[in-house]
């Protein structure tokens, strides 16, 4: 499909997107590899205005794109990724997309589905195929993972009349991941739910590792903020987002990368003081710096924690792009040197850390607190690699 997508993109000079829903992104299987294709020669664009989206050019590009829609539709009607598979029982016609097709087949051990099936893998929707299914069947069932994209599109494509079953009429739950059981039940088959989960079962949410430096940072922050109404700590995405859960309950937001600083700034500008941002060293490098510049320019009264564990822990321990540069970056952006503090997040320094944080929360400008201690998983990995090397030598 990816090969086809690249070819399609080259042929029509349009971007092609591969849409993979929940489960497909987390599945593996044995694959047969084909020979890699020779890399295309590097080529500069023939149309030098192609990527210059000035309004006048953008209007023209959009007009051309619209003109190509008929071609795309024709491609869809004949694409091998859109298949009409006839079946003898016309009481139901099934429109099925992507991984939902796997779930459908799972419910027929001999892999023979009695109903006509339209399997859709390429957009725009193949209108003629849909019209055929609509004309030949009494009801339509739409099976797709994630949002009901195809089901909603049918509304504009088909006239009123046949019942369309799917996420919108409640045949399939409106939200949540699709699975073979939901598909079975939607086809009138029985649910094969096995033994119930014993009543003693409890949830087990993910947690910070014992010995994690973030734990000490959160303990210090919590102590400083004790007594103040909660909801003033804006955070970001990383292991430290787990600080929102019990027992710490130290942070109150995780929206998008870098939003800790911009949200804290917005809150402070609106009058919330103290206002705190908590961001990891890698996230800071990725998208915290622009927000910091804005806060410095406006001298917003915020305290920013840059939790520096020396690695990108959550995604498996890649190097952090700001490694060894955080203070320099902050100074370069204009944070006053006396309001940049590096702390050692350890129990024995707790008191001292609390004191520094308290002072900086009281400062009516941008303060940076950098609790710095290596991720314990990263240490473990580093030490093991060192021993391995020693053993080889």
């Amino acid at each position, binding site marked *: 499909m990816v090969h086809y997508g690249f070819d399609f993109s080259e042929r029509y000079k349009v971007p092609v997107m591969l849409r993979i829903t929940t489960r497909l992104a*987390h599945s593996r299987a*044995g694959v047969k590899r084909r020979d890699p294709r020779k890399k295309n020669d590097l080529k500069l664009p023939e149309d030098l205005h192609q990527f210059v989206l000035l309004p006048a050019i953008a209007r023209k590009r959009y007009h051309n794109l619209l003109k190509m829609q008929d071609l795309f539709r024709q491609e869809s009607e004949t694409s091998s990724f859109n298949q009409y598979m006839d079946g003898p029982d016309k009481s139901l016609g099934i429109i099925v997309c992507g991984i939902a097709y*796997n779930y459908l087949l799972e*419910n027929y051990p001999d892999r023979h589905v009695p109903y006509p099936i339209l399997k859709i893998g390429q957009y725009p929707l193949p209108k003629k195929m849909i019209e055929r299914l609509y004309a030949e069947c009494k009801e339509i069932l739409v099976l797709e993972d994630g949002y009901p994209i195809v089901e909603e599109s049918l509304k504009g494509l088909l006239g009123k009349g046949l019942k369309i079953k799917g996420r919108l009429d409640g045949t399939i739950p409106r939200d949540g991941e699709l699975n073979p*059981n939901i598909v079975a039940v939607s086809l009138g088959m029985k649910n094969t739910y096995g*033994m119930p989960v014993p009543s003693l*079962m*409890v949830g087990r949410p*993910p947690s910070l*590792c014992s010995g994690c430096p973030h734990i000490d940072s959160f303990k210090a922050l919590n102590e400083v903020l004790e007594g103040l109404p909660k909801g003033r700590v804006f955070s970001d995405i990383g292991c430290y987002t787990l600080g929102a859960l019990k027992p710490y309950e130290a942070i109150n937001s995780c929206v998008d990368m870098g939003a800790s600083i911009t949200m804290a700034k917005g809150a402070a500008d609106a009058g919330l003081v103290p206002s705190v941002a908590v961001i990891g060293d890698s996230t800071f490098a990725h998208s915290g710096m622009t927000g910091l510049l804005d806060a410095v320019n406006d001298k917003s009264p915020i305290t920013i924690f840059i939790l520096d564990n020396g690695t990108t822990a959550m995604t498996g321990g890649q190097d952090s792009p700001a490694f060894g540069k955080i203070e320099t970056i902050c100074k370069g952006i204009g944070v006053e040197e006396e309001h940049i503090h590096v702390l050692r997040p350890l129990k024995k320094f707790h008191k001292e850390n609390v004191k520094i944080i308290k002072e900086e929360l009281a400062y009516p400008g941008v303060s940076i607190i950098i609790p710095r201690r290596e991720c314990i998983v990263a240490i473990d990995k580093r030490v093991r690699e060192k021993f391995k090397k020693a053993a080889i030598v």
Partner: protein
Amino acid sequence: MKRDIILAGVGGQGIISIAAIIGTAALEQDLFLKQSEVHGMCQRGGDVQSNLRISDKEIASDLIPYGKADLIISVEPLEALRYLPFLSPDGWVVTSTKPYINIPEYPEMDKVMDEIRKLPHYIALDADELAKEIGTLKAANIVTLGAASPFLDMQFDKLEDAICSIFRNKGADVVNKNLQALKAGKDFTERQMNP
């Protein structure tokens, strides 16, 4: 031949290694394989679950339907119980009895074991203890895999080959310890089945 397996445990307990070993062995035997990480495999300390399906025929769904799993392999006793709705009436549960207590409300261990003993088909072993005897606590996951090996409908030496290839980079000692762990688990189950 078909084996639908649910792998369960707590993040960081080595479920990915179990999946990799069974998967490698399956592909070596030209079996079809689908593996799906159903729940937070990268989240330390949280419950994790992986679906592993192997078959000599093409596999349709990436997810195991309710009531169809032939085997639940769990490296932790409470986690073994979490996925019972997926177990087939003839299915086996192979679990380590060593609890991983990182939540304050972890149920009383006796009650957890009572629930396991209620199951029609189960193997429960203290994988940590057996791993310790071999000299590495880290191989507890492989002990559990060994205990499940008689239910995999797979040649034992294919699992051994997979361990050799997956742990090769970690040195001969690691490979040998893991081979011993696999054998120790297998021996435990064989003793249980043929006392």
